[in-house]
């Protein structure tokens, strides 16, 4: 990766070359960083290290109750995982969930561009689109459960427009062909407003003159979108795709409240596995749960790196 800094965005460090490091800057930097670093160490890194360690140990209900600590078992938990068809199904479903990332990002960016205009009612649309985001997952579950019901609004609406004849209505969450996509639609519903606002914040950074110049040049709005908006929004798109990728890989709450992993484990995700192993009552198995969590983390890490590369590459190619 001997590529130069992406043009169009400010390089991360000052462009003017300075002496290697100034003592003053270093001290100041660490003073500013101190609160964050202390809290992160205490509440994130330390527990993460400990959690990773647990992945290589036996630490379940019985040892816990007797006040015994974890016992080192090496790769035993990972062997158990590799042999558990449920875990493999779960991991597969989580990877399959990544389909949502491009769809969700393109939709959010498009909606953001559409409402980023001085027309009457735009503030209203922006606020309304954000409402699903401020809904807690348990409330969302209640509402969508009714929508997806065999006798719910979705079937009714599709019946009215004759897409599905009344006799063949089915519960969208009860059918192993549709449940996965139905759950994903809820993720989409709760997500597009969230990313829309992130993109809106990013769009404010695009100089109005650029847009105006393009309009004068007679560029169509579609062309403006691809040749001006998207390249200038790259940092935001990168951030959003990264967040969305990780969120998709770690999807849990929607599944937990809507289908509990069913039907036929078609919505059983990797984090659902982690969750059920860590919290299945008195038989819980922190060791196995942590090991499964580590596997998910490694996949997430690889995908994040891929994400960064993808954007760097396409960026370099275009300019």
């Amino acid at each position, binding site marked *: 990766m001997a590529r130069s800094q992406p043009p169009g965005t400010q390089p991360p460090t000052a462009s003017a070359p300075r002496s290697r490091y100034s003592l003053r800057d270093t001290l100041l930097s660490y003073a500013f960083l101190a609160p964050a670093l202390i809290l992160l160490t205490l509440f994130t890194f330390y527990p993460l290290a400990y959690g990773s360690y647990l992945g290589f140990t036996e630490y*379940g*209900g*019985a040892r*816990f*109750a*007797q006040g015994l600590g974890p016992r080192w078992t090496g790769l035993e938990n990972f062997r158990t995982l590799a042999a558990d068809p449920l875990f493999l199904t779960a991991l597969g479903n989580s990877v399959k969930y990544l389909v949502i990332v491009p769809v969700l990002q393109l939709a959010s960016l498009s909606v953001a561009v559409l409402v980023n205009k001085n027309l009457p009612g735009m503030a209203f649309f922006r606020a309304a689109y954000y409402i699903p985001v401020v809904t807690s997952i348990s409330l969302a579950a209640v509402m969508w459960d009714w929508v997806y*019901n*065999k006798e719910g609004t979705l079937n009714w609406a599709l019946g009215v427009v004759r897409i599905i004849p009344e006799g063949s209505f*089915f*519960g969208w*969450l*009860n059918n*192993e062909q549709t449940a996965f996509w139905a759950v994903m639609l809820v993720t989409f519903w709760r997500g597009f407003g969230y990313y829309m606002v992130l993109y809106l914040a990013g769009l404010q950074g695009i100089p109005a003159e650029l847009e105006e110049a393009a309009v004068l040049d007679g560029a169509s709005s579609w062309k403006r979108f691809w040749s001006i908006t998207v390249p200038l929004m790259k940092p935001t798109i990168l951030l959003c795709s990264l967040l969305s990728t990780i969120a998709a890989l770690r999807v849990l709450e929607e599944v937990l409240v809507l*289908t*509990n992993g*069913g*039907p*036929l*484990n078609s919505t059983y995700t990797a984090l659902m596995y982690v969750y*059920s192993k860590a*919290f*299945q*009552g*008195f*038989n*819980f198995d922190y060791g196995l749960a942590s090991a499964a969590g580590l596997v998910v983390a490694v996949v997430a890490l690889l995908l994040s790196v891929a994400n960064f590369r993808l954007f760097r590459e396409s960026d370099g190619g275009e300019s």
Partner: protein
Amino acid sequence: MTQFHKKQFHKKALLALTLGLSLTAVSAPAAAQATTEVTFWTWYLSPKFDPYIKQTIAAFEKANPTIKVKWFDKQDSMVQDFIASVNLGNAPDVVNLNIDETGKAAQNGFLRNVDALTPLATLKSTFYPQTLANFTVGGKVYGYPWYGSLNEGVLLYNPDLMKKAGVSAPKNMTELLNMVKTVKDKTGAYAWVPALKDPGGASFLGYFSSDGLPIYDAKGNAAFNSAAHVAILQKYVDLFRGGYFPEDALRKEAFQLATELYAQNRVAMIVGGPQALNRIKDTNPGLYAKTVVTTAPLGKANTQTGTSMGMVIPQASKHPAEAAKLAAYFTSNANQIAFAKIVPIIPTTAAAQNDPFFKGASSDPIAKATALVGASGRFINPGFKAPGNSDDLYKNFSDNIEAALLGKKTPKAALDDSVKFWNANMKK
């Protein structure tokens, strides 16, 4: 009734006496008694039953002036909170768990055996033998049986829907299963919501035991895949695939679903604990008034099965003696009967079967249901003993039942697969 009142009176007199004594004790500076604080967790009882719990606690504190009770009600997070609190070293002293969770907690060493705190003879004279056996793990008693409920319990039905379908109340499970089609075809409402699958258990196993079929063989291996077992599952599969049971029964607890649908006139019958009636009364009082309550249809074994709550004392409790007092007090016959007067639960105490409260006749659905089941605590028996690592095994069983219901496996293959999994993974 009068007997009960007399008892109450005696208790009050006793309370006054102990209160007086404790007051003098407090006023005497030398004998300052330290009070012990006991933490008490119930499960899903607040806010509906706050008055009952608070009154009972107040009465207990009066009778035991050196003990203060700090009460919390836990909901979904009960077991997680229990584990977390043990981790943090502030474990509760008395916890309300059901039979399944008590078994798991005891097997993993979270609980004290209560027969070391209360003499076994006292326990045996207070509770029905079976209700006590439900909380016995490895020969030791780990819980004071508390309020119970029956799986079959009572049958309650919507007479309008039954009339429209042209059927009368089923007398046994065979009759019930035979009218499922008729009711749905003629009324559009479901006849009944069977317990097909639930997140934490394996309720379908209950249909095997209620027909007298074994879950385990003589050696303790899983054996629920005989031709008779398959035939039962086949019957449910056929009805499910024909659209005669609600699809949601695969995703939601049958009891919750049935209560919801019944109040909306979309299911004709509920078989189960009469608790449903309180809910129907709140949601649809008109239908409640019409609802007919009668004896439940039973399987071929002709027995009821049921389950109960219990009170356990964590190994990590710092005040086990005081905790035992509180648990014994709450589960006593008098206090369970007092509870039954508020909500139709079934006392697990042996003396309840002779209580006049359950002998009364009434036309009110709740009162009638209470009279039908109140004295039947001897039937509180899940029907089969849960295996050691029940979570994994139940999940596998439920997945297989689901596969059969959705037509992904034949009933025979589903039960064969599950038995194979159980025998390969069961920790006895």
